[in-house]
């Protein structure tokens, strides 16, 4: 995997998730950060930090990105969300516009 095809998402606790750029772009917010010309530091080094999103939630978000890509390609499976994660995940999804 080439470095420019991936992006590093960093949780509040400092955990790093390296995922495909294509998957990360499922989030409208991240897409804007990565594609808007020059204005974000994120555009250059491919690193985005989310001080408000915990590791558990960010992991779930990354799983969702990949699920969403597969779903769009016609693989119809359910995306299971544990009820105890719903509130925090909802807020993160709202922030990431996904």
């Amino acid at each position, binding site marked *: 995997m080439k470095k420019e095809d991936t992006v590093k998402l960093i949780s509040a606790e400092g955990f790093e998730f390296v995922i495909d750029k294509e998957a990360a772009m499922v989030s409208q917010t991240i897409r804007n950060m990565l594609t808007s010309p020059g204005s974000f530091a994120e555009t250059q080094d491919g690193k985005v930090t989310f001080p408000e999103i915990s590791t558990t939630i960010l992991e779930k978000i990354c799983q969702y990105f990949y699920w969403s890509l597969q779903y769009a390609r016609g693989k119809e499976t359910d995306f*299971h969300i544990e009820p105890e994660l719903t509130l925090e995940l*909802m807020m993160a*999804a709202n922030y990431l516009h996904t």
Partner: protein
Amino acid sequence: MMEIENQTELVRLCLEAAGESRESIEKWRRQRRSLERLPAHLADSLLRHLIRRRLLFPSLLEVFKRSVEVINLRGENYVDGEWLAYLGAFRYLRSLNLAYCHKISSSAIWPLAGMISLKELDISRCVKVTDAGIKHLLSIPTLEKLCLSETGVTENGVELLSSLKNLSVLDLGGLPVTDPVLSSLQVLTKLQYLDLWGSKISNEGACVLEMFPRLSFLNLAWTSVTKLPKMLSLECLNLSNCTIDSILEPNEEKAPLVKLSLSGTTFVNEAEAFLHIETSFLSFLDVSNSSFNSFCFLPEMKALEHLDLSSSIMRDDTIEKVVCMGANLRNLNLSNTRISSAGVGVLAGHLPNLEILSLSGTQIDDVAMSYISMMTSLKAIDLSNTDIKGFIRQVGAETDLVLSLTALQSLNHLERLNLEETQVRDAALSPLSNFQELQHFSLRSPSLTDTSLHPLSSLSKLTHLSICDAVLTDYGLGSFRPPETLKLLDLRGCWLLSEDSIMLFCKRNPQIEVRHERRSVAPSDQVGPNRPSLSRISLRASQMNKKPEQLPLSVCFIDQRLKYSREELLELQYSTLSLELPHDNDDQEVMRLE
């Protein structure tokens, strides 16, 4: 209002997971810190989702008290004082709708006292809320919108509202508001919307209306008001079922009315009815059931888009007036007027933008079809309850029949067509297969058979189909290939269909909702399924006997009589399954041209 559907995909999935069951709620309801951080629009969505899933209970409300801004409990009639005890603690609640919550009483709304975050409150139809309840609301000076229609509030309670100085919307429909009380509300100078239908207001009280400088919406339906003062900001006015002398006082400046409802209104002097109104901005006019005779005011109304003339005395010789004004008209209702095909002929070619036309219950026949086909923007046509047969006999050649529905093929935008209670038979329906934009289609006649289904299979955009009271057989339904787009099939009154064949059809076409008396429904929806069939039939027989006396002889009556011959009635006696008369109103609602 943001609905769950408007949320992004993952937010929607989270809302569904959170409101999956009581157990899933227990998993998150103690996450106090998260709940307090929820943005208001997410909290509102979550609460709305729980209400819709019937999972909300009073003590659960507590977790939302620092986040939710909008709550709509309209029609949730289990809501009682306990709910309001919790709602009273909501810090940021801006809008609360409790309409039709019958358990809500004056004492129940006490917890709302002093909630200065509240701007909108709807307690319409809460009949137990009385003047005592109004006293609790007086401590909420922030209220901008208050709906009290059909509550137990008296004139004394309404008088108290004068201290709520920020009110801009006030619905007092059905309350006994008197002239002196209305006068006391003059201090509410921010009022823009005032509903006073069914009140005790007379001309004396109506004079006061001049004092509301921003009033743009006024409803005085069912009052004894006969004249109105000048109101320069007025845009929407409803004077339905009043007897009117003059709508507004003579004045140099005229109110720029946009919407005017005069349904069932009687005018003392028809010629002067619209004298003091600036009618050139009017886009909506309802004069259904009114006493107008000459309609000489119509040509002036050049901006009119929506005109309801139903059940008025509009005739072929006055329809000319509609032509004069016609170019902007989009929606024209001529149902139950004295219009015939000749009248439709006068309109033909003059209504280039007409999208919705109702001619239900008029004397038109098949000749009208070719005139209708000249209204090229039509999207919806209601021809129910007419003498339309679907064919025209060519003069001279007795055997040569021209199918009149063919004329409508040229209407490229036609989405809805209602041919219920007409004389149209199977053979006349064949041109339908070319109506490629048709989405809603309805028929109701005991003369239709399986053959009527044939042209419908090829309608590639059809979503709603209703064929009621027809003689469809199990075989016919079994061999019917519905268009893939079909969502609803109404077969009520098709008495020959068996439960098995309907079940089979539903199984084959799970995406289609089928309506029929023999379609098994949830027990709660069934009304007396075990009633003896004998009484049901005798009831129907007695209805048939009465009908000619109550109603003018209609197509409907003839159909019903044809539908059940003596032998059939005797057979039906032994039928164990219920066979309800179709509910006319429900069906019309499905296909109402709106």
